[in-house]
């Protein structure tokens, strides 16, 4: 049993569990949306004193911060107790394309070229993560949600705004993939 769990999970089991988590949170009286946590963190750090957007009762969002803590713990459990062969089985076409940019074939979940400490201590590596993260935080709040809030919760509730947001996610993603990454690497 544990052997099966340790292997990479097929997409349909993953999608089903994500839907289950969303429904679970609905039955807990909450809604699934991860990026709200970033706003909550700003507020908990005292940003509400300066900026009205953060002036709300962040304690009511404590449940979501607990969900965040659980997500970190889930990552840790996967990396230790449930760790399998961690090399990602991406398609040959992707490996070929990335090789042209100077990325070696995956031997882990994340590429050394971006996530190793050597890469982090270069100007390019540091700025890629910092600016990339900045756009994730700015963009998800501007759009009122991220992948969980729009692509999963929003689309499940047949919300047109979420579809527009998801189209935006892809416009940005394609620009990064086909224009920015080749410029950077």
């Amino acid at each position, binding site marked *: 049993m544990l052997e099966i769990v340790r292997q990479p999970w097929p997409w349909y089991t993953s999608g089903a569990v994500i839907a289950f988590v969303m429904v679970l949170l609905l039955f807990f009286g909450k809604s699934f949306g991860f990026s709200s946590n970033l706003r909550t963190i700003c507020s908990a750090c005292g940003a509400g004193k300066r900026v009205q*957007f953060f002036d709300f009762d962040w304690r009511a969002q404590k449940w979501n911060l607990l969900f965040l803590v659980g997500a970190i713990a889930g990552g840790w459990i996967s990396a230790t107790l449930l760790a399998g062969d961690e090399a990602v089985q991406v398609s040959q076409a992707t490996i070929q394309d990335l090789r042209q940019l100077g990325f070696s074939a995956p031997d882990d979940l994340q590429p050394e070229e971006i996530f190793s400490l050597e890469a982090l201590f270069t100007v390019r590596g540091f700025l890629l993560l910092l600016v990339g993260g900045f756009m*994730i935080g700015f963009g998800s709040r501007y759009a009122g949600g991220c992948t969980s809030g729009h692509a999963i919760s929003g689309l499940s509730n047949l919300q047109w705004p979420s579809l527009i947001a998801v189209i935006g996610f892809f416009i940005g993603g394609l620009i990064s993939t086909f224009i920015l990454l080749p410029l950077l690497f």
Partner: protein
Amino acid sequence: MKGLKFILAGILFGIVMSKSEAISWYRIQEMFRFQSFHMYGIIGTAVVLGTLATYIIKKYKLRDYQGNPIVFTPKEKSVPRYLIGGTIFGLGWALTGACPGPMFVNIGHAYWSILVAVAGAIGGTYMYGLLRDRLPH
């Protein structure tokens, strides 16, 4: 403890994102290059089952565990905020290979570099709060 169920739900989320490799930069690259069905399969299954569950909850007016009706708040009708905000989000998503959830799951995997992206994301959220009134919504 009242909060335990949220931690457990988070653990399940963290495990499923890890084991399905959705937290991997490579998988996000593969998705944006349209070279595999994997990520589309994950999101697609979640949306199809989620839509079904949402429909059932609404049709039978199901209640949460405390007996309160489950409500879905409709999103505001607007195009610019979703399109511009979404595009900015997508730029960051494909660069770092992480969206807000997986970003934190990666901390559990001890990919410490991701903390820089987390700091950036908190900074970006703060900047949005600062500029909010001047942005088209």
